[in-house]
């Protein structure tokens, strides 16, 4: 058997990581299924050089101390009946940060997933078979040992939630359907066979939180959660908050050191600005996911999570006014991304025209520039003989408003009249899904999947059909090939290069700002210095401790 190209490099990295600090639980379901509220994760908060490491103020060099209660915010009420733990809607993301874990996870380097609940994760040479062996001695919070049956149940649940009486948000996982067969070899070892050679299953297993079937009814009722992660649910009070206590039997304790905290109190806030005020009033030790305007007040306390995608202006290619690529190029060059980054994003993340995060194999440093040249944009527009018989509509949701106003100004400066149209979120999503927008639209996009082909093929903004009606032969060719090649190989690199060129030469999406996440932590909070890529933008809670 050939070791996974990801996994083979993993061991060296794990040695380097040994003793480096604590690890974190869970996995977010990006890429696996659609999230309940993408706005939240790919919204207007702009982003920077995300490498997986938090951009953090210097922390103390004291040895970590056990004890203390960490007070933090939780965005909205948990949604435990909508497909969690394989669908991780934004209100639930705290759970894979603390409670649930997948078989593997990604730290900074997406080429090297870290073995989390397994000690073997090997593909066959032809990529049609995967052998997985569970680590010995891993137990759930209720003391039950982790078994292959739990992995099988988690896959079954992700594939057919209806069978378990669950109405999920989003679409059931398509990748789970690739598993054509499975076999329990012994109490720890499983073999999976796939429908065809597969390069995209590593990402699937990295987002598959492992859950026990016996614990499902209590989870759906919001009474108990049973995972393998560093913290255990103590109490959930709907509308009020969630408390967690440490899992003293955490399988990574010896290696990583944590969990250090005696207790975590996550208070439910539905409004980020209220969380910012509570942080300012010292009611909270950490406030997660603040808008730039609020984070600005605590600039020296901000931790920046790696960016995962961005906000973009979609251009409907079938619209005769936008059909000429030069018109769309003009739009691309007309947007003042520097201004958006500074005025809307408060300068936390630099301007970029790129959707790929820095850790992605498809990342192109050349696209990490503002690409702002109004003179060139005007010239392109003239060459195309652009004319319009009406203002072009720009539907958008509340979160994008500030960026849209800049876009309107930028486009009018080169002679394109626009009509921004604030739209209610559910209506916007519905219209977008039905591909009914005819001019422009402003939406968010998550490109965080460690395997670029999964990000492209599963993304409704890019896959064919897409909302922009972009179906050029070049895009078709790229999408047809990209799922069949090694995501780290030379062939894939060439496809990424061709795709990124389309971004400039035949654009249907113009990136406005990257989306990251801004968290703030008080002086008491130590060890908050790492974010995982998978689970999605998760802080490493295994390392976090409190000063006395």
């Amino acid at each position, binding site marked *: 058997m050939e070791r996974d190209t990801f996994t083979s490099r993993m061991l060296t990295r794990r040695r380097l990581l040994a003793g480096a600090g604590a690890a974190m639980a869970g996995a977010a379901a990006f890429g696996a299924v659609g999230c309940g509220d993408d706005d939240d994760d790919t919204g207007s908060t702009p982003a920077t050089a995300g490498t997986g490491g938090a951009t953090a103020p210097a922390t103390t060099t004291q040895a970590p101390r056990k004890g203390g209660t960490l007070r933090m915010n939780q965005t909205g009420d948990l949604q435990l009946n909508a497909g969690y733990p394989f669908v991780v809607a934004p209100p639930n993301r705290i759970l894979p940060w603390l409670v649930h874990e997948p078989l593997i996870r990604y730290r900074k380097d997406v080429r090297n997933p870290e073995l989390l609940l397994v000690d073997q994760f090997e593909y066959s040479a032809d990529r049609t078979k995967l052998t997985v062996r569970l680590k010995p001695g891993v137990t759930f919070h209720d003391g039950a040992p982790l078994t292959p049956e739990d992995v099988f149940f988690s896959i079954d649940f992700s594939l057919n939630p209806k069978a378990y009486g669950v109405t999920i*948000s989003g679409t059931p996982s398509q990748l789970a359907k690739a598993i054509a067969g499975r076999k329990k070899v012994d109490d720890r070892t499983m073999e999976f066979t796939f429908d065809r050679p597969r390069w995209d299953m590593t990402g699937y297993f990295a987002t598959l939180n492992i859950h026990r079937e016996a614990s499902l009814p209590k989870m759906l009722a919001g009474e108990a959660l049973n995972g393998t992660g560093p913290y255990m649910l103590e109490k959930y*009070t709907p*509308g009020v908050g969630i408390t967690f206590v440490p899992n003293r039997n955490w399988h990574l304790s010896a290696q990583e050191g944590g969990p250090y905290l005696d207790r975590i109190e996550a208070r*439910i806030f539905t*409004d980020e600005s*209220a969380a910012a*005020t509570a942080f300012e009033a010292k*009611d909270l030790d950490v406030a997660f996911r603040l808008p730039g305007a609020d984070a600005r007040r605590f600039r020296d306390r901000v931790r920046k999570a790696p960016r995962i995608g961005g906000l973009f202006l979609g251009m409907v290619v079938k619209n005769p006014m936008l059909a000429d690529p030069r018109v769309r190029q003009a739009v691309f060059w007309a947007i003042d991304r520097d201004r958006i980054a500074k005025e809307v994003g408060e300068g936390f993340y630099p301007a970029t025209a790129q959707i790929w995060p820095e850790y992605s194999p498809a990342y192109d440093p050349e696209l990490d520039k503002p690409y702002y040249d109004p003179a060139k944009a005007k010239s392109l527009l003239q060459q195309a003989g652009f004319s319009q018989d009406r203002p072009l509509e720009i539907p958008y949701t509340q979160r994008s408003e500030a960026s849209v106003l800049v876009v309107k100004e930028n486009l009018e400066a080169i002679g394109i009249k626009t009509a921004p149209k604030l739209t209610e979120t559910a209506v916007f999503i519905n219209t977008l*899904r039905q591909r009914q927008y005819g001019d422009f639209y402003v939406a968010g996009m998550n490109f965080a999947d460690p395997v670029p082909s999964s990000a492209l093929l599963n993304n409704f903004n890019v896959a064919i059909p897409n909302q922009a009606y972009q179906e050029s032969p070049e895009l078709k060719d790229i999408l047809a090939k990209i799922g069949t090649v090694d995501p780290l190989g030379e062939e894939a690199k060439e496809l990424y290069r061709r795709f990124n060129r389309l971004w400039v030469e035949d654009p249907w999406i113009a990136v406005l700002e990257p989306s990251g996440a801004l968290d703030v932590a008080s002086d008491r909070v130590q060890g908050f210095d790492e974010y995982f890529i998978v689970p999605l933008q998760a802080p490493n809670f295994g390392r976090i401790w409190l000063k006395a």
Partner: protein
Amino acid sequence: MAVFIARRLLASIPLLVLATLLVFVTLELVPGDPAELLAGEDATPQRVAEIRHELGLDRPLLVRYGDWLAGLLRGDLGTSLSRGMPVRDLVRGALGPTVELAVAASAVGMAAGIGLGTLQAAAGGRLDGWISAAVSLAISVPGFVVATVLLWVFAIQLDWLPASGRVPVLSDPLGGLRTLALPAGTLALSMGAVLARFTRGSVTAVLQQEYIRAARARGLPERRILVRHSLRPALVPVLTVAALQVGNLLTGALVIEQVFTRPGIGYLAVTAVRQRDIPLVQGVVVVFAVAYVLVNLAADLAAALADPRLRQ
């Protein structure tokens, strides 16, 4: 009196039905539905249709409303679409924080408003002018502005009071009062100001009555005239206004509970509307409607006790 109460309670039933039906229809007319929000932007129209079917949203409006009403009669408010929990439990959990808030704000607002209004009417002159100016200011400044200022001063600058959250008063009186102080103070300010204005007008009018002049002519002490002979008749119209103000407190709680992140009914209502969680919105509407009915009934009873002519 029992007949009076029974008649008022019976009259409130159509009001409840109308209010809930109105909300049901309004939510139906607003574009977008919970299935679309749940499905996310990547879901296919087929998947949205499936979710709609699973949630029972594809049934006719009146059928759904009828089922909901039948459930209400059995004490079942349905299941929250966004949380998958019984609405009854969610509403029950949120009632405590709002009741505490309403009671505290009403007590402070009524005491301050009636007290200040009476003082204005009795004292007159420059004091009356100063209090009137303060009352006008308190009425004209929106609650969320007052809340923000109070937060900035007492929670952030002085660090005396918490900016958010709720501690149950019965389990921890001191902690509870600390979390109550700012939201209750915010709501009490506008209620007190309105009541002060009405009380002043009402007491001033009573003080000009013939029988008050006669009492003064008989040499009764001014304090006795004010407290025993003026306040009781003056408070009859004030009680009606106070009842309306308590109703307004519930509306005010929608905003104030958001600002202070107090997990009450107002907070729950805003979250439910955002998520198009129709059963939860309906549950909250029932609570609001019942609260309005009860508060108005209480005001009518108080007024009837104060003025027996009103019982007819």
